[in-house]
């Protein structure tokens, strides 16, 4: 009775998946043998150790939402998907699922290599809890999508591995589930099939299916997800807006948890001490002779409020505070915008547009863009000050800052909005 009542409440809340303090515990068996290394036949001692792969996980995915799950290897992403798919039993906590789940976790799990492709469609479809009638109705759709029409009557053991996963993906993708759990399955098959499967996933989104996506491809996550969860060591470290989550994750990888300049300076001083950090952090560097020092960089919006997110078409202002220890003539300030993959989008400087004849002891420089033409995505920002020949750097902060642009039409591609116009005429 209580469970029925709960289901009714669930329907009202309009969520697809919800967890409360979910935890998964494994028992690890350590096998010891004193003094001996190598492959052992007789184990002298087995020690069991508790290991919490997930703990205190609270998440909620609303109907039609696309939730990204990111984290380093071993952070518990796959364990989380498996527990949501009810493959792993919960060691503690609660889980509510509202709708039919299709796990795109390990493709082709239910396949029997001795049976033909067509027979396997029925076998693995019923493994998802469907009836033979429903699968029969979608049978030709699945075969067409997989492109395996010629091979459907051949035992699966004679399939290539590419054909195998194509068939597996096609089955799950064509059975119209309410909730899809996706674990790194974008790289299925050849290029055209990858494109097709990506479009299929986009179509799930349009149709209002709830998607939970585990991926290391942050571009995919940024493009698809409304919300992101960052897992680390079995715990949710971040739960919220996609671009912020991706930022959080990248900083987690670098071992920093905030992006302000004060923090990066601390890392700078630590860098001399440890060579390891340089390698880790080689994409963002700082160099220069130091007569002029950039003290602080912040991004401002139209109302001069500090922010890290902008919308295409809005006003963007970068504010650079500097101090100078010597009287330097005609220094040149410059900034640069990069994509996450290091493509230089724009790199304007003051050489010809603004002359600073003599630099004061301290000052502020603004770079103002009124109608930002950057498209949605994440951008890295560099700032530097050089002498007038542009040969001698006083201070150069390479890609130490970032901001996110959102808005615009998500079906437009590229980084720059050229503000072009489409004109269509009929030829008589």
């Amino acid at each position, binding site marked *: 009775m209580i469970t029925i009542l709960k289901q009714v409440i669930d329907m009202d809340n309009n969520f697809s998946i919800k967890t409360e303090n979910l935890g998964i515990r494994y028992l690890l068996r350590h096998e010891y043998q004193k003094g001996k290394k190598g492959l052992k036949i007789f184990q002298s001692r087995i020690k069991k150790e508790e290991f919490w792969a997930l703990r205190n996980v609270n998440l909620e995915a609303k109907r039609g939402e696309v939730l990204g799950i990111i984290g380093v290897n071993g952070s518990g992403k796959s364990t989380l998907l498996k527990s949501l798919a009810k493959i792993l*039993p919960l060691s503690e906590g609660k889980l509510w699922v509202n709708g039919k789940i299709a*796990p795109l976790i390990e493709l082709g799990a239910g396949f029997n290599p*001795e049976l033909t492709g067509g027979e396997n469609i029925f076998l693995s479809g*019923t493994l998802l809890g469907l009836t033979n009638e429903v699968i029969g109705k979608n049978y030709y759709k699945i075969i067409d999508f997989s492109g395996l029409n010629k091979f459907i009557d051949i035992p699966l053991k004679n399939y290539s591995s590419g054909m195998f996963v194509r068939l597996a993906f096609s089955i799950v993708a064509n059975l119209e589930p309410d909730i899809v759990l996706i674990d790194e399955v974008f790289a299925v098959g050849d290029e055209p099939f990858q494109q097709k499967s990506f479009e299929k996933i986009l179509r799930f989104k349009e149709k209002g299916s709830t998607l939970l996506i585990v991926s290391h491809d942050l571009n995919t996550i940024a493009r698809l997800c409304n919300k992101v969860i960052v897992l680390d060591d079995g715990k949710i470290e971040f739960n919220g807006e996609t671009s912020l989550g991706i930022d959080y994750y990248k900083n987690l990888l670098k071992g920093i948890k905030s992006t302000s300049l004060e923090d990066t300076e601390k890392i700078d001083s630590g860098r001399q001490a440890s060579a390891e950090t340089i390698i880790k952090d080689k994409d963002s560097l700082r160099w220069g002779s130091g007569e002029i020092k950039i003290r602080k960089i912040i991004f401002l919006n139209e109302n001069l409020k500090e922010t890290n997110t902008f919308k295409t078409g809005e006003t963007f202002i970068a504010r650079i505070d500097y101090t100078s220890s010597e009287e330097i003539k005609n220094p040149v300030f410059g900034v640069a915008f990069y994509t996450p993959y290091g493509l230089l989008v724009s790199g304007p400087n003051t050489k010809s547009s603004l002359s600073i004849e003599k630099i004061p002891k301290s000052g502020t420089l603004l770079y103002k863009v009124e109608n930002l033409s950057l498209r949605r995505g994440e951008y890295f920002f560099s700032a530097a000050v050089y002498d007038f020949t542009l040969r001698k750097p006083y201070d150069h902060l390479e890609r130490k800052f970032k901001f996110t642009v959102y808005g615009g039409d998500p079906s437009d591609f590229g980084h720059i909005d050229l503000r072009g116009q489409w004109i269509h005429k009929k030829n008589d």
Partner: protein
Amino acid sequence: MLNKFIKEISEIHSFRHLLLNLIKSDIKLRYKNSFLGFLWQLLNPLFYLGILALVFSQIIRIQMENYVLFLFAGLVSWRMIQQTSLIATHSIVNNQELIKKVHTPKLVFPLATVLSQFIDHLTLSLVLFIFLFILKGKISAVLFIAPLIIFLIFIFSLGLSLFFATVYVYIKDTPHVIGIAFQALFFLTPILYPLSVLTSSMEKFFKLNPFYYFIEYFRYPFYYAKMPSAELTIIVCAISLATFSLGMYIFLRKKESFIFHF
């Protein structure tokens, strides 16, 4: 526990087409690429029966009325229990890759194995029925209780299978031990000989063997051609139910943690 049982059964109902497809693929794969196919399932026990009948009626010379039919009925019911539970012991471990990757009611795997085995056994029972005419056995209305005893053997075998399949997940020696135990039981159960050849003290000891009651009960419609006593009926029902409950109880208790022990 009862809740768990009802939940598992209702899940089996929603996965009933999976059960069907698993049985179908099991049967298909067993006889794929063999010339005689399904016939082997009959030829194999028939040859075995032929050898045993030859040895025990011609060489050892057991004297009893229509010995071959007696032996045949005993062998069919014995195989129902032994073959089924021996093969179904592997049903969870063999499907571990599936259990690790997809959510399904786990009962579906032993159930599919036991059912697909019973399709073979039913066919063999039909052959026994035909042999009843060939060997000029007594044909009576008692044959109508044959479905009842086959059903009871099914419940008993399913209980054993669930128990063995669960234990096998934890202890890898299980199939070896069961194999040896069944070999011993084959001779300790009155299959080749009637209980009457034993001394009365031995008889008491042999009656502790639960398998005896199923073998004996199965012979009533096919060999004795008379109604079994109410006492025997109750004993057989009780053993089936108790074994089924025990097997199901242990299976349901442990099924969640299978995945951690593969």
